[in-house]
């Protein structure tokens, strides 16, 4: 029986290949995600290991309000260093500043984005063995005006020791003399990061960290265990510093990056999973058609002694083999994709410390298990069908499979599945007090069930839908198209499953596009409502250095400059985002007050605050309420609510709480402004724009934007995310396309005799091709109709709960029309191969075909 399954596979090469491909793609996505994220993760691990190579323990800055590490944590007092050095167990120390500084190229362009432009303040020549930086050329920087940069940037810009380079370090760009070239640990390149090294005192001055430190690497005397050393140091530290053994610190940093990577991994895996889910429809359908076409063969097996169980296993085995082979191929395709992506990143200058791709055993196991498992699961129904083939079918012409008990209960079962799905979705969407994970699981589970339920219902919808959707074609395409419409409705189950596979991809694409449209709409409305300034100064998505505002103010014609700062803090037992606003904020933003008046920002003083309406409602705050803010430095700031701000649904620049910027600057260490708005005499004019741009020329990261530019930039970022999601979902659509090809090939095979007859009575090859093509289009349109309907339903449900987060339900008509066009195109493409096969049939042979 194993042989029957094996040989059967080999004998049905094309269909096995197409079916296998449906799995290969999904598995490739899964293995590719694992390999890529593992490889990136390992690269970072190396960097972290390098960081603390010779240190025993590391003292580092932390926020008083949070236990998690953060680059923005306020520096701790330098007196800690003296206390640490006083310990007998301490042999050597290396104090340092860790911050951000951007290198500027010859054309005035930034060499890296903000979060990949590292700055170090460290004194060379002192305990260099503790220094993760290695001097490759020249000398360590000494005194203001000197810097050491990484080898990658130096090579890229053709700079060497003694040359000068522009550096943006907490202020306008300034020229520095390159004293030396360094590299970080053993890595010549670390993912496109640029490095600027200053001596410690220079860095402390530059980054406003005088008498403060961000980290101290400590080596203990021989014979003292790292843990003991850490225990000795711990009591000496303020609440904005922590000590960890070097190993623990490296592990913690690795864990932090990996949790970020983990999110990306989950997203990619989810899309791989969706592709596999779609693939399972393709496998189920192919095997089911194969069973139908093999009725005679299966019945013969039964007459010569095969038991039902053996028949069942032969079909499951066939599915499992397809799954196994496809999984192995998919595993390697995934590896190839990861390799290609790695090369692509390198080509884009984001080169990771190499060392080859990481193929973890987990990747192999999960990829193979999931691919094979999906195939086996999908083969169960066809296999059960096969067991119902009665032995007598071996001798009866045209024997058909008896309907299963389940099939007779088809409608109630399908309706029940849809019912459960909707209930689960409603629970996930509407239930109160559900944990996010539970909510997401309920929604994901409900969505999967909904797809299954609609797929089960679909056979009943195929006939009317085929009639309706085939109508335009039948009007235009003549008799071939009319026959195509009949053919599509001839095997409703088969057409339904084929269309259902496409439905999944299109439903999700529709869902994403509606959500995206909702976000666009509400965000645009918010911008229109709030943004009354003439210009916004931005550093892309990053905060802009506060001194840029001062530079802007000196431009000819500037009337108002208003900056908004921001940082996280703790209030009422939770983490909140706090903004610092200037008294003139009302001149650049049109704020609406639920309570209070336009005078609120100007009258905040040192203890006043205004809060967002949602936050006020949640905590029962009104004018006069008191609350205490605990900042990252550990300061406690008592506040009194002076106003409640009515936030538009599409969001605003403000977090939960806003205080005056004077108050903010006294209690927070954040140096940058999240937003900077400018009003000029005469409003937006070319001359004003030019004047403003000139004024901030020393800030290469700053761009001048009008309201529309500000909005469009953010919308284009949203579009980029949407496009990425479409691209990921395209994989599922491609899988379902394979399904259409497969079904058509099998139908053509099955109708060989009939096609021969049609050719014999005068159908041209072109008409045959048209007939197959139209059947394909009708199938694809059924998939599109079901998909768009399900997608709209899901989006309507989800936008309902998200309405308070500013996502309105808005149908993107143009996009939906594009999806329908994509479905038609998919139908046309899927039909190419089967149509060619059908039109090339030899009439005589076709008629003799047994």
């Amino acid at each position, binding site marked *: 029986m194993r042989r*029957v399954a094996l040989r059967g596979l080999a004998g049905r090469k094309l269909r096995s290949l197409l079916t296998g491909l449906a799995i290969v793609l999904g598995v490739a996505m899964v293995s590719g995600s694992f390999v890529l994220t593992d490889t990136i993760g390992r690269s970072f691990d190396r960097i972290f290991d390098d960081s603390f190579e010779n240190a025993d323990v590391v003292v580092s800055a932390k926020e008083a309000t949070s236990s998690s590490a953060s680059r923005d944590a306020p520096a701790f007092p330098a007196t800690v260093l003296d206390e640490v050095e006083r310990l007998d167990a301490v042999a050597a120390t290396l104090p340092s500043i860790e911050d951000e500084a951007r290198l500027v190229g010859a054309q005035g362009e930034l060499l890296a984005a903000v979060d990949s432009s590292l700055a170090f303040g460290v004194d060379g020549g002192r305990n260099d063995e503790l220094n993760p930086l290695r001097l490759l050329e020249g000398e360590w920087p000494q005194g203001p005006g000197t810097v050491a940069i990484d080898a990658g940037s130096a090579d890229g810009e053709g700079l060497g020791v003694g040359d000068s380079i522009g550096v943006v370090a907490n202020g306008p760009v300034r020229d520095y003399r390159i004293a030396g070239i360094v590299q970080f640990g053993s890595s010549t390149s670390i993912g496109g990061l640029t490095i600027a090294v200053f001596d410690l005192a220079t860095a402390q001055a530059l980054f406003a960290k005088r008498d403060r430190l961000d980290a101290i690497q400590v080596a203990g005397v021989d014979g003292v265990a790292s843990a003991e050393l850490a225990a000795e140091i711990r009591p000496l530290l303020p609440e904005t510093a922590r000590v960890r053994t070097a190993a623990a610190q490296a592990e913690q940093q690795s864990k932090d990056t990996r949790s970020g990577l983990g999110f990306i991994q989950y997203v990619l895996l989810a899309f791989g999973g969706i592709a596999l889910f779609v693939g399972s429809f393709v496998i189920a359908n192919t095997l089911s058609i194969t069973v139908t076409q093999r009725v005679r063969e299966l019945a013969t097996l039964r007459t010569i002694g095969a038991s*039902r169980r*053996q028949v069942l296993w032969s079909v499951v085995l066939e599915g499992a083999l397809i799954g196994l082979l496809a999984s192995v191929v998919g595993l390697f395709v995934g590896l190839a994709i990861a390799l290609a992506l790695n090369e692509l990143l390198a080509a884009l200058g984001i080169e990771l410390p190499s060392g080859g791709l990481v193929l973890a055993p987990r990747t192999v196991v999960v990829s193979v298990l999931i691919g094979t498992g999906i195939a086996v699961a999908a083969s169960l129904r066809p296999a059960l069908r096969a067991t119902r083939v009665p*032995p007598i079918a*071996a001798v009866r012409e045209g024997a058909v499979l008896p309907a299963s008990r389940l099939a007779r209960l088809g409608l109630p079962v399908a309706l029940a599945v849809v019912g459960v799905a909707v209930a689960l979705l409603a629970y996930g969407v509407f239930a109160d007090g559900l944990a996010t994970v539970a909510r997401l699981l309920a929604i994901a589970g409900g969505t999967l069930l909904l797809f299954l339920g609609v797929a089960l219902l679909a056979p009943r919808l195929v006939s009317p839908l085929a009639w309706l959707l085939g109508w335009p074609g039948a009007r235009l395409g003549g008799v071939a198209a009319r026959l195509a419409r009949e053919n599509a409705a001839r095997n409703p189950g088969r057409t339904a499953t084929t269309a259902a596979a496409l439905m999944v991809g299109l439903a999700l694409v529709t869902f994403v596009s509606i959500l995206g449209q909702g976000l666009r709409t509400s965000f645009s409305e918010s911008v229109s409502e709030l943004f009354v300034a003439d210009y916004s100064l931005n550093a892309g998505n990053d905060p802009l250095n506060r001194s840029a505002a001062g530079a802007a103010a000196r431009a000819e014609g500037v009337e108002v400059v208003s900056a908004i700062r921001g940082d996280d803090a703790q209030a009422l037992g939770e983490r909140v985002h706090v903004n610092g606003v200037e008294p003139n904020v009302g001149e650049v933003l049109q704020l609406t007050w639920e309570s209070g008046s336009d005078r609120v920002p100007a009258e905040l003083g040192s203890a006043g605050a205004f809060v967002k309406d949602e936050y006020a409602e949640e905590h029962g705050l009104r004018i006069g309420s008191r609350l205490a803010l605990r900042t990252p430095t550990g300061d406690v700031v008592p506040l009194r609510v002076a106003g409640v701000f009515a936030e538009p649904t599409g969001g605003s620049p403000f977090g939960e709480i806003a205080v005056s910027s004077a108050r903010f600057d006294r209690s927070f260490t954040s140096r940058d402004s999240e937003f900077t708005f400018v009003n000029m005499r005469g409003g937006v004019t070319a001359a004003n724009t030019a004047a403003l741009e000139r004024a901030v020329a020393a800030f290469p990261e700053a761009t001048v934007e009008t309201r529309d530019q500000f909005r469009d930039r953010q919308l284009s970022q949203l579009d980029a995310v949407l496009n990425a999601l479409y691209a990921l979902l395209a994989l599922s659509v491609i899988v379902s396309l394979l399904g259409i090809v497969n079904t058509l090939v099998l139908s053509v095979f099955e109708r060989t005799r009939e096609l021969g007859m049609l050719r014999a009575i005068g159908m041209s090859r072109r008409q045959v091709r048209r007939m197959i093509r139209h059947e394909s289009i009708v199938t694809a349109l059924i998939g599109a109709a079901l998909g768009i309907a399900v997608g709209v339903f899901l989006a309507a449900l989800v936008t309902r709960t998200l309405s308070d987060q500013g996502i309105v339900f808005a149908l993107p008509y143009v996009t939906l029309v594009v999806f329908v066009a994509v479905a038609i195109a998919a139908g046309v493409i899927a039909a190419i191969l089967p149509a060619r096969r059908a039109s090339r049939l030899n009439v005589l042979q076709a008629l003799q075909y047994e």
Partner: protein
Amino acid sequence: MHVETPPASANGPSGPPVRVAARDVTRRYGAGDTAVDALRGVSLAVEEGQLTAVMGPSGSGKSTLMHILAGLDRPSEGQVWIDSTEIGQLGDAELTALRRAHVGFIFQFFNLLPMLTAGENVSLPLELAGANGDRAWVDELIERVGLAARRDHRPSELSGGQQQRVAIARALVSRPTVVFADEPTGNLDSSTSAEILELLRHSVDAYGQTTVMVTHDANAAAVADRVLFLADGRIVREIGRCSARDVLAVLEEVSRG
């Protein structure tokens, strides 16, 4: 329920044992006005080592009778025994076991598995039964049906006659109690038919293989030890071994009714 035992032997207690028996078998297809009575009360007994032919005009119920005797179909009324087992009450698993041990099939359209070679088709029933197979026996059968040279060929590379030889070897390989053949020559030309019939005859003579063959070919019936004539769902005549011409004459008589 009252279960009757089958007659031990048609020729009295001393004769060869009965391997297949039917009593008062009827088969009705459909119901109401459109009901068709394919069998209207058939009783018979097939003795060991005999080649029994069932003849009759088209639509007389030959195939229906064979399907019921072989346990592929169930009678509307009446009972069927294979090797003293009443098969009317058996479930699917028991019928499968019965087919493995007791029944071989030869079909009009050969029904070989296209992806297996001739040799693999022959040994398939043994593998399905989980027996590791009596290789010598498989070799002998393939030799006997004259396909030693074609053993590794696929069915599509064999002629109709060769395919039917494979099917015969496959039917014999499990040494079944009875082999059922439904129009084994129905799809073959006359000279090939003669070879196949000779082979069937040989299997009865050499191995004592009890065989029931449905046919409307007088030449086929002529190799049988016994010919049953079916008309309108009833056995109307029975004759012993005789020539094709005699068979034709009886058939004509029977068909006229």
